[in-house]
């Protein structure tokens, strides 16, 4: 275990990057997910279709492939992203549809009569979604959203294959430098992931119970 305490700065560096990727991606992808979910229930058919196509394409492409596309296709088009920016873009493009689907399932859990009542007092589509549907969807949407964030936490590890120094990169470097303590090194990596994901899961549980009581 000395290998962990002895290399704490390196772990913390990777941990910091992982946390950074997670936070920035969530902050961008979550509003994007709301927009995509709204497009999918919009009265305008072209918005519905483009949102559905985007969702299906990204949701069914392995994240690594999204990174590869960015790494090889963008330079051909004459642009090159900084590695960290590239990772954020790839993670955002990939995660937003999962957020959107979680939000859409929450929207579908709100009885259709709520939206009909909203429209019948003259609220427009955006007002109906923002004032009536989303505030009610939020209760059932938090647990699945947290699941997406937990998956995103672990997906940030893919960025380590594309020159971003995440927790996994720290693990790789330490493992190759300390061949005799690989297990301890990897356990250390796992512990840092758990530091992020367990509180998230606990929050989802707590929220679910709270909603169950107030309902």
């Amino acid at each position, binding site marked *: 275990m000395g290998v962990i305490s002895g290399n704490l700065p390196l772990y913390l560096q990777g941990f910091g990057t992982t946390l950074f990727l997670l936070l920035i991606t969530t902050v961008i992808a979550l509003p994007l997910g709301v927009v995509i979910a709204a497009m999918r229930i919009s009265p305008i058919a072209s918005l519905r279709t483009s949102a559905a196509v985007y969702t299906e394409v990204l949701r069914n492409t392995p994240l690594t492939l999204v990174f590869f596309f960015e790494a090889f296709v963008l330079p051909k088009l004459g642009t090159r992203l900084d590695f960290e920016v590239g990772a954020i873009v790839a993670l955002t493009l990939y995660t937003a549809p999962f957020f959107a689907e979680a939000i859409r399932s929450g929207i579908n859990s709100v009885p259709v009569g709520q939206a*009909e009542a909203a429209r*019948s007092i*003259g609220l*427009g589509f955006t007002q109906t979604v923002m*004032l009536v549907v989303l505030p*009610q969807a939020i209760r059932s949407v938090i647990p699945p959203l947290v699941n997406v964030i937990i998956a995103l936490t672990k997906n940030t590890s893919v960025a380590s294959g594309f020159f971003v120094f995440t927790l996994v990169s720290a693990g790789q470097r330490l493992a190759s430098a300390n061949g005799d303590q690989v297990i301890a090194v990897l356990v250390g990596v796992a512990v840092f992931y758990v530091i992020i994901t367990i509180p998230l899961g606990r929050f989802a549980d707590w929220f679910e119970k709270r909603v169950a009581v107030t309902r």
Partner: protein
Amino acid sequence: MGQPAQTDSLLVIERVNKHFGALHVLKEVSLRVAPGEVVVVIGPSGSGKSTLCRAINRLETIDDGTITIDGAEIPSEGAGLATLRADVGMVFQSFNLFAHLTVLENVTLGPIKVRKLSKAAAEERALVLLNRVGVANQAQKHPAQLSGGQQQRVAIARALAMEPKLMLFDEPTSALDPEMINEVLDVMIGLAKDGMTMIVVTHEMGFARKAAHRVVFMADGEIVEDTTPSEFFDRPNSPRAKEFLSKILTG
């Protein structure tokens, strides 16, 4: 019966057709309603009466024909449609009060967001309306804490808060326990007496006799009879109306 002249009509429905897949739910339906008129739409389930009611504020689209309210044809979408809906009050069978808002917020949401009233002005008016329907003392509660009859009266107040030209009631008492039906009907009778234009899909014959100017009987997507309540209940013309009445009277 003296049909109102064409220019006097607040609502004009002209040769409207609607299909649900292969099912022809509205067949060449035409109807005129004058300002202040109370029209009860009655008929067996599946006759298209609810669909007709919902088509008037375009919660259901129509395949062809026109629906005109106060001289303006219903727009198919966009801001124009929202404006029209604000002028047409709707009361649903299942109340559909906004579950996350208090009773007071339910009634003030439209006036604040659509009519652009100040919160204070909207609340003042909302309390007057809630008082009128007899639930002012429940203003701070959430809908789930109210009885069905109270919820439906709040729903009526919510619709009235928009100062609609026309009120639609889609089976407003069908989801209520029997002992709560009258408290809702009393509010509706009061509205009718005050001159509100109303289209009411209901089986409540007491309401039809007390408050309606006309009864429209629908069967299989068509308007079969359009007459006064006493004519309809005492001397129905068509075999289908006779059959329907015999069923609900012996019901």
